[in-house]
């Protein structure tokens, strides 16, 4: 009697699980353009103003505005998935989101792992110091401690410099600015727009030198998803052509591109 009851229980649980799986599978069943139908999910390290940061629980910034516009033109709604910087490429590859847009410089190493859209902004590196610092350019950085964000082109640029005392690698650029303002580090090497923006809003630092690196940001798409990449490039072209891009650029950087 008892074994019969147990057997029935197992059967019913199995049936339930099977039904559940069918439903779940059905949801993702129709192979759409994006992971969640009607939504474009964008992975982004939202600690990087003015490109992306959280404000009142909402992601804002240049990348966010641009991505919203791209999504709109594709008939999709944008959803930002805040993601730590060092987990962002693995996140894209493992399908946590559809696109990666996080002020990411296009590099050959990264291009091996993911596909990049056409570049959407030029971004040179720059040296940022505390106001009144004697450091004026790369030569003054010899024997100094330079702060960067872990795994960014800022770090790679700093690593190519000779004679630095130390490179302090921070998880977020906000922490690097905190350290710079407290005199724990001597300079920050980071993307020019960000250094300029942070200095403007925090008021204690200044950009003293632009370093031409011919860097460009791109939107990352998982390899193999060529259709999505094509649609993004088309939307991007349209946005640039009809003046929408300039409007967004001016909103965040205060000057035309």
């Amino acid at each position, binding site marked *: 009697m008892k074994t019969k009851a147990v057997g029935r229980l197992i059967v019913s649980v199995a049936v339930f699980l099977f039904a559940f799986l069918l439903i779940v599978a059905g949801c993702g069943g129709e192979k759409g353009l994006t992971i969640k139908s009607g939504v474009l999910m964008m992975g982004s390290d939202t600690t990087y103003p003015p490109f992306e940061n959280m404000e009142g629980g909402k992601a804002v910034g240049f990348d966010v505005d641009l991505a919203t516009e791209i999504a709109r033109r594709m008939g999709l709604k944008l959803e930002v998935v805040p993601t730590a910087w*060092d987990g962002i*490429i693995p996140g894209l590859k493992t399908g946590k989101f559809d696109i990666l847009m996080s002020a990411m410089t296009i590099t050959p*190493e*990264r291009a091996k792992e993911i596909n990049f859209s056409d570049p959407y902004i030029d971004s040179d590196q720059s040296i940022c110091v505390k106001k009144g610092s004697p450091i004026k350019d790369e030569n003054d950085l010899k024997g100094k401690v330079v*702060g960067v964000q872990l795994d960014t082109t800022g770090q790679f640029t700093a690593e190519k410099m000779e004679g630095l005392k130390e490179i302090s690698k921070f998880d977020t650029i906000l*922490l690097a600015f905190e350290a710079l303002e407290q005199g724990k580090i001597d300079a920050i090497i980071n993307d020019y727009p960000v250094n300029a923006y942070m200095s403007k809003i925090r008021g204690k630092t200044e950009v003293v030198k632009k370093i031409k690196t011919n860097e460009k940001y791109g939107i990352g798409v998982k390899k193999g998803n060529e259709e999505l990449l094509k649609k993004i490039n088309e939307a991007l072209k349209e946005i640039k052509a009809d003046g929408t891009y300039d409007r967004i650029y001016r909103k965040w950087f205060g000057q035309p591109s």
Partner: protein
Amino acid sequence: MPYLLRGLLLTIRLALVSEACILAFGLIVALLRISRIRIFRAFAAVYIDVIRGMPLILQIVIIYFGLGHLGIGLSKFTAGVLALTVCYAAYEAEIFRAGILSIHKGQMEAARSLGMGYLKAMRYIILPQAIRRVIPPLSNEFIALLKDTSLVSVIALSEVFQRGRELMGTKANVTPLVGVALCYLIITIPLMRLVQRTEKWLSRGD
């Protein structure tokens, strides 16, 4: 791999220096916690509660950046050691306290009846017995500490975990993380075995 191993050295150095400070400070807090002087007891109780009620990563950021705002500039290493010490001393103080209280009160009375003062009795009679009992739990705390040193990467200390994440970024794959895992495991697994054997050995002595 040598890049990771150099990070591992920093991890070990952080853990060892911190542990030395933690043992000393934790014992002091434990003695304050069981002191007959009310203010000492209250101070230790508040300290233990406050610290244990906060995430370690927050304490690290507060000590490095927060104290910086107050004009107290600490090096990354010092700040890391200080944060780990402040945090772990609270836990280890409780372990010390439990160890001391587990010693039968007759021991203290016998020592006192021989004319030993409280501190002498503590030092020669109570602590030597208590410390034997707390070696296993303290060793487990040390293993936890070794793992928690990874949190100091938040203040840009380039220990093994940060180096792993860095390599993951540049190589854009996850194999460096496997390397980091191995780095921790080659230390923690032998330590865990050692703790088990010590536990057995100590219980045989009872």
